[in-house]
């Protein structure tokens, strides 16, 4: 099975060949490196930019204005905070300009903790991103979703941000990407650049098939009765793991929703599940003051206050200046499996 980062690479290749992608660019995105996570290795239209995130976002916007289809990368979301004004303009220019111009850009960036990243490779971005009106924001947690969401991000004529969970980039899924060879090793030989000299290396791409995951549609990863758990990104597989353990250990079952689209989000799916379980726990790892999970919680309160059996809740990262390098910091700053499991158990067990 492909890793998440291989899936992104294949999606970008499909985008280049079939969806009109004209430029894939960012710091170290082109040859020889093909991205610090290898997401852009071997792509026909990939090129290296100057070390200037503002220039990268501006270049994307300009390409879009002139009818191109850019996919820009911010190397780590941690380094995108000097571009928020530009992201706002990208999100508002169509509205401000009476619909004259669309803004079909894709911005992809690794987000979240879990790679021993210290302060500046551990930031989460979704709570900031969700505030950018005019944007759509997605965050896959599996390779297949990464493929399908990236294709939709490219296809959508609006600015779409693809947040890639840093911790899951090298994780493999359990479903083949349409067109992917069955054997991991074969795939690797076809599309991973060799270590060492790459001057003459060319990828051999599998014959990939289109696969669009519509924006705004969550994925129900586990079905159950005792509570609804909403998550995405790094914490999603931990929720699934916790759910499976709690089923095994105590017989509790959960609806685990992988939100996938952060904006627009799948309110239908959340709402439906709450009506079934009467209990909801929202989990992410972004800092807890003015967190996107708190927005979801507000919607829950707005619409389902009187449907809830117990207090709804959100488990988030601490409001802290950063995540320290020593793993003791990370373990005590952002939700880990034990925290998640405990929160899930509590909400399942609380008396209604």
């Amino acid at each position, binding site marked *: 099975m492909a890793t998440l980062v291989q899936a992104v690479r294949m999606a970008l290749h499909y985008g280049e060949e079939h969806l009109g992608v004209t*430029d894939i660019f960012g710091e170290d995105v082109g040859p020889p490196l093909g991205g610090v996570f290898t997401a852009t290795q071997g792509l026909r239209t990939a090129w290296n930019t100057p070390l200037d995130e*503002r220039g990268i976002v*501006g270049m994307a916007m300009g390409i879009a204005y002139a*009818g*191109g289809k850019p996919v820009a990368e911010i190397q780590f979301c941690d380094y995108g905070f000097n571009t928020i004004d530009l992201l706002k303009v990208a999100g508002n220019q169509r*509205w*401000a300009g009476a619909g004259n111009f669309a803004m079909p850009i894709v911005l992809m960036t690794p987000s979240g903790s879990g790679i021993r990243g210290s302060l500046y490779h551990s930031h989460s971005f979704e709570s900031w991103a969700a505030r950018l009106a005019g944007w759509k924001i997605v965050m896959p947690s599996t390779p297949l979703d990464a493929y399908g969401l990236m294709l939709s991000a490219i296809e959508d004529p609006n600015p779409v941000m693809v947040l890639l969970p840093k911790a899951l980039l090298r994780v493999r899924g359990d479903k083949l990407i349409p067109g992917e060879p069955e054997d991991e090793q074969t795939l690797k030989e076809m599309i991973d650049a060799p270590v060492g000299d790459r001057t003459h290396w060319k990828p051999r791409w599998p014959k990939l098939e289109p696969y669009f995951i*519509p924006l705004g549609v969550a994925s129900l990863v586990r079905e159950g009765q005792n509570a609804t758990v909403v998550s995405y990104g790094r914490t999603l597989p931990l929720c699934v793991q916790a759910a499976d353990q709690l089923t095994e250990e105590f017989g509790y079952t959960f609806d685990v929703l992988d939100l996938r689209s952060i904006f627009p989000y799948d309110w239908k799916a959340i709402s439906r599940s709450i009506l079934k379980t009467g209990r909801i726990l929202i989990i992410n790892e972004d800092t807890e003051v003015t967190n996107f999970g708190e927005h979801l919680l507000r919607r829950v309160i707005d619409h389902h206050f009187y449907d809830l059996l117990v207090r709804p809740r959100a488990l988030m990262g601490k409001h802290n200046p950063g995540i320290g390098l020593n793993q003791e910091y990370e373990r005590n700053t952002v939700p880990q499996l034990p925290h998640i499991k405990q929160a899930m158990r509590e909400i399942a067990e609380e008396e209604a």
Partner: protein
Amino acid sequence: MPSDRNPGHALLADAQIRSGKESLPADLCLRIHRLMVRSRAMEERMIKMSKSGEGYFWIGGPGEEAFNTCLGLQVKKGEGPAYDYLHFHYRNSAAMIAMGMPMIEGIRQMAMTVTDTHSLGRNFAGHYAKKEWNVVPVTSVIEVQYVMAPGTAHVQKRYGGDGITIVCGGDAGTAEGDFASCLIWSSRPGHELPVLIVIENNRWGISTPAESVHAEKHIIDRGKAFGIEGEVVDGNDPIASWHAIRRAMEYCRTKRRPFMLEAMVSRLYGHSSSSGALRVKDEPCCIELFEKKLLGEGVIDQETIDQIHEQARAEADEALEQAMNEPRPTAADVYRYTYAPSRVDAVYPDDYTGLPEA
């Protein structure tokens, strides 16, 4: 709408008006003059609107008509990468008028009607957006246009042809890092881009004199380290401006490389309506200067000049009258044009409609 041609004078077809070593045909000068006057009339009409309550905030380009008219007239106007892309700031109305924009388009924006095709009554005056002419939306955020300009030029370079990207902004704004980014991205070795980097230097940033915060003698000197050539021109002189723009465009069109053009201009009504929009007395007026020259050359008389001003004012008044009778936005317009229609969006297939619902 009155024609751009001056009907009151039978000109010798080959009469030339000179400025220093350069010259322009008299009929072109008269055409430029009338456009300058019309732009000024539109701006002055807007200033009145800002005081009468028919509009609110005003900002615009009185004092920059000479340069902007010559710019607008030489733009390769059209849609798509074969044509010029324009990344304007809020003082480029005269370029739009010179390109053929009817006054009412500017007035509608100031009047905040829903018929305003540039912003649907949403944005400040002078914040244009016009897809058919490659005029990308003007934003109030100073200098961000300079990081987008290399993007349109990048597509043009690849596309071929002679379309170029023109980006305009003020002098004070060059202190933002985005100006430097434009220089770097336009001059990448082997990927030099056809960007005409314009600085409209009025030596002011609101209340702050340029010389109090900037050490550069000429802003274009900043291009040298990147091998970007440039020129400083008297933006109050339409003849000098015409030729400087012509040379700069020619350079970008043919060499497919960046060029910097710094136009020294006046700011005749102060910064904006926030600072009172009062006519300042100590800066040269490009229209007065040009009229003196045209009168001196005998290609126009005072009566005709007065008539041109009169017609321009009348045109502006009519535009206002019409605009004031046009519909205004309603609550239903609040979300309009947030999203372009998408076939892969399950929630917003057509446009934004408020928070996701069940």
